[in-house]
């Protein structure tokens, strides 16, 4: 549908939030202790922040939970009885205040989860997700959305995108039918859009991702990977907090005769990720694992999924204990002689 532009005042925004929060699950950002931002379900409006640059964890968990049951089983004498998960029980979630990098991530995740075989769990959750995005009026040195084809006010992935206006009110861009449904449910909260200026931060482009993808075609054996990954300690932090990382492990947990099979987040940075039962590990050293991370996001995914595997949110770089700053590494890669 064609984008509709509306104005929503600060007071109306509160009314909208309160209305939504009263009858649905709303996932909104709050300032946790020590200046950290976390998304919580249905916090009070007074606690919801509009000033966050980024939350520590991404919001991929609304479509790709940290842990998700995929079936239940009962072990009988000779076989097992499987109980499927009732996906119709998945509730609608309104994601409130996600920045454009996070909203764009859902499409990238969809390109992985619904690639050739549709992941029913993911698909159902995405179907039930309504995204009210929040354009960025602030950014920091870790942000690099403009280097990966996005922008601080990109509408990609949002059903409604809110942008702060100079007056303190918000521009609401209604982008999809899902977004429109919210407007038609509370029409008096959305006024005629005026021509007030939006406050959008500037995120300077740091590298050209097409150049990077090109360089990666011949950079596989380059010593760059070894030099740049020596300090990597091989934890899973970057993959777990990344909005586009989608790798998962599947485990069974049995108690007596009853059990459940679940999937949970996994990381290619961990040594165990590619360890075979024979003892052989095709990615034995950290440089191979670091190379895999970058190549997956900037070489394999563009080639196969037709999209980059990164939205430039900068979380991995903020959260890394040893400053494996992905933007810096990609800038260096771009300049590499291959």
């Amino acid at each position, binding site marked *: 549908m064609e984008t509709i532009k509306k104005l929503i005042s600060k007071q109306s925004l509160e009314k909208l939030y309160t209305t939504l929060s009263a009858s649905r*699950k709303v*996932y909104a950002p709050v300032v946790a202790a020590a200046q950290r931002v976390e998304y919580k*379900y249905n916090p009070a409006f007074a606690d919801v922040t509009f000033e966050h640059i980024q939350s520590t964890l991404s919001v991929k968990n609304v479509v790709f*939970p940290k842990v*998700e049951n995929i079936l239940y089983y009962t072990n009988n004498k000779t076989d097992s009885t499987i109980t499927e*998960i009732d996906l119709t029980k*998945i509730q609608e979630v309104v994601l409130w205040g996600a920045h454009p990098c996070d909203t764009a991530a859902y499409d990238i995740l969809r390109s992985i989860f619904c690639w050739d075989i549709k992941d029913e769990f993911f698909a159902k959750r995405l179907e039930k997700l309504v995204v009210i995005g929040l354009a960025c009026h602030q950014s920091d040195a870790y942000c690099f959305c403009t280097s990966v084809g996005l922008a601080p006010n990109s509408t990609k992935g949002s059903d409604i995108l809110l942008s702060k206006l100079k007056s303190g009110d918000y521009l609401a861009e209604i982008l999809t039918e899902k977004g429109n449904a919210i407007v038609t449910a509370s029409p008096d909260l959305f006024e005629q859009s005026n021509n007030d200026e939006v406050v959008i931060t500037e995120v300077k482009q740091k590298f050209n991702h097409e150049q990077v993808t090109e360089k990666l075609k011949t950079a596989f054996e380059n010593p760059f990977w070894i030099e740049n990954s020596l300090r990597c300690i091989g934890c899973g932090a970057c993959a777990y907090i990344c909005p586009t990382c989608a790798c998962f492990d599947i485990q069974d947990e049995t108690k007596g005769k009853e059990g459940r099979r*679940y999937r949970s987040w996994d990381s290619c940075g961990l040594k165990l990720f590619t360890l075979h039962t024979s003892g052989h590990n095709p990615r034995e050293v950290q440089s191979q694992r670091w190379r895999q991370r970058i190549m997956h996001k900037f070489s394999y995914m563009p080639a196969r999924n037709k999209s980059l595997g990164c939205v430039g949110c900068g979380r991995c770089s903020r959260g890394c204990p040893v400053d494996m700053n992905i933007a810096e590494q990609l800038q260096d890669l771009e300049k590499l002689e291959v």
Partner: protein
Amino acid sequence: MSDFEPKVVAFVCNWCTYAGADLTGTSRIKYASNVKIIRFPCTGRIDFMLLLKSFANGADGIIISGCHPNDCHYTSGNFHAKRRWIMFKELMDFMGIDMKRITFSWVSAAEGAKWAEVVNTTVARVRELGPYVSYKKMVNTHIEEEVTNE
């Protein structure tokens, strides 16, 4: 609450406490039946994961018992265990896990009466404390909240 019967798991060493518990039986000394005894070769073999799993699987109290120092069948197993128990107790207390629910004891193969006393005291104390609700609640949280929703 008055009909709460605590579930107590006892991790005991084969050579002393288990034999001691046998003696309690053959001496026809009655003691609380709430305890389930698990036999180990030595207290030195007891991993703390087992204790944590006991609480997670519904135990309200735990007894750990072995040979007196200098009497260990394997010479020094119980000395190692003692050091570990000291550290474990401090850590558990620091984490807010109720150490009043755990009894550590040395019960020899000849101390049938002592075994009965250890069990009875522990069961009485745990009965007073009630079921270990806060721990069980934490264990069950993941099933309800964490798994299919945030």
